C-alpha cells in the first residue's frame, strides 16, 4: 500500500516538475524513479536534485549501498540530463570518507562515463576516481591511462586525468609515458595550461618537467604564464632544470610584466632569496 502511494506521489512530482512543498524522497527512491523516466521527460530542477544529493554525506553506508545500483542504472539512461544527475550523486558519494569501499563494486560503471560524448560526464569520472577515500584503489589507473590515450575525448577532462595519475603513481613508467604522449599532442592552449596546472606540486619525472619548461617558450601567453607559476611548485631540481629557460624568459623583449615577474621570483627562489 505504501509502495503504491510512493509511486503515485512520484508521478505527481515529475509532472509538477518540482519537489516544492513535498517531503524529500530517499536517494534510492529518487533515482529509481529517475531511471524509469522516458528519455524525453522533463527533468527535476537543480534544487530538487540537490535536496536528494544533500542526504548522501550523512546517510548510512547501508542506505548508500542500496541506493548505488539505481544510481548506476540512471547513469545508463538515454537522457544526458538524468545521467548528469546520477553522476552528481556519485560525486557526493565519492566525497564520503568511506567512498572507496562503497564505490568499488561500481568502478566499471564509473569507467563507462569516459565513453560518454558529454564532456561533463567524462570529467565527472576523473573527479570521482580522484577523490575516493581513504585513497583511490589501484584499479583506477588502467581506465585513466586508457582515457588519456584516446584522441577523441575532451582534452580538458584528460588534463584533469593527467593530474590524478601524476599524484597517484608518479613513479609508474606507464603513467610517465601516458603524460608525455598527452603533452606531445597538438593541444589547444587552454587544455595545455590545464594540464600544467594539474601537474602543480606533483613529483613527476624530469622528462615531464622538460615539457613544462618548454611551455615557457609557448607562443600563447596563458601557457607561458601557467608554466612559469607551476615550475617552482615541482621542487628545487625542477627549478634548477628550468633556470636557463627562466633567465631567457626574464630577459625576453616583449614579454609581459606579469610573466617576467614570476620568472624573476622563480630565479630568486633558486638563489635562496
Amino acid at each position, binding site marked *: 500500500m505504501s509502495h503504491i502511494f510512493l509511486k503515485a506521489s512520484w508521478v505527481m512530482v515529475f509532472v509538477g516538475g518540482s519537489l516544492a512543498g513535498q517531503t524529500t524522497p530517499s536517494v534510492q527512491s529518487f533515482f529509481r524513479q529517475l531511471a524509469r523516466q522516458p528519455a524525453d521527460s522533463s527533468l527535476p530542477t537543480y534544487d530538487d536534485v540537490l535536496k536528494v544529493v544533500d542526504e548522501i554525506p550523512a546517510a548510512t553506508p547501508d542506505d548508500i549501498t542500496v541506493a548505488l545500483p539505481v544510481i548506476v542504472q540512471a547513469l545508463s539512461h538515454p537522457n544526458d540530463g538524468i545521467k548528469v544527475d546520477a553522476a*552528481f550523486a556519485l560525486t557526493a558519494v565519492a566525497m564520503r570518507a568511506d567512498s572507496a569501499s562503497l564505490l568499488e563494486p561500481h568502478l566499471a560503471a564509473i569507467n563507462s562515463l569516459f565513453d560518454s560524448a558529454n564532456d561533463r560526464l567524462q570529467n565527472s569520472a576523473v573527479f570521482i576516481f580522484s577523490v575516493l577515500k581513504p585513497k583511490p584503489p589501484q584499479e583506477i589507473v588502467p581506465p585513466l591511462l586508457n582515457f588519456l590515450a584516446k584522441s577523441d575525448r575532451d582534452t580538458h577532462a584528460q588534463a584533469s586525468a593527467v593530474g590524478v595519475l601524476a599524484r597517484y603513481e608518479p613513479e609508474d613508467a606507464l603513467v610517465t609515458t601516458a603524460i608525455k604522449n598527452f603533452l606531445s599532442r597538438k593541444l589547444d592552449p587552454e587544455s595545455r595550461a590545464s594540464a600544467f*596546472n594539474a601537474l602543480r606540486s606533483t613529483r613527476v619525472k624530469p622528462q615531464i618537467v622538460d615539457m613544462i619548461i618548454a611551455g615557457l617558450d609557448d607562443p600563447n601567453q596563458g601557457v607561458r604564464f601557467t608554466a612559469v607559476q607551476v615550475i617552482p611548485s615541482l621542487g628545487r631540481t625542477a627549478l634548477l632544470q628550468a633556470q636557463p629557460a627562466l633567465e631567457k624568459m626574464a630577459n625576453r623583449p616583449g614579454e609581459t610584466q606579469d610573466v617576467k615577474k614570476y620568472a624573476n621570483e622563480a630565479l630568486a627562489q633558486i638563489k635562496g632569496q
Partner: protein
Amino acid sequence: MPYFSFENRRQFENGADQAAPVSSSASASNPLESVNAPITWDMRIVVDTTNPNAPTAYVNYNHTCYPSRQIIVNGDLLYRYTPPRNDLNYITGCLLFQSGKITGQTNPSTIAPR
C-alpha cells in the same frame, strides 16, 4: 574558498550609439581546485541613451550558479546574484556539472547619465 574577480570597464557617453550592447562571456577556474570546474558567464548589457538625460540599461545574464557576481553601470548596480549556498555539494553541481545555470533578463532601469 576560491577567490575570483573580473572587471570590465567601459564608459558610456551621451551621443554614442543609442542602444549600446556590451557582451562579456568567458570562463575561468581556480587552479587550486579542479581544473575542470569552470566559472562561466555570458552577459549582455544593453544601454539605451535615447533620452540622454535618463539613459536606461538592462542585462541579459547566463552564468554558473556559483560564485556571486554583480554588474554596475555608471555607478548604478544593475544586476546582483548571490549564491544561496556555499557548500561543497552546491559548488560541485554548479561548477563541475554546470547545473542550475542562472539565466534571465533584468527590467530596464534608469542609470546615471555621464
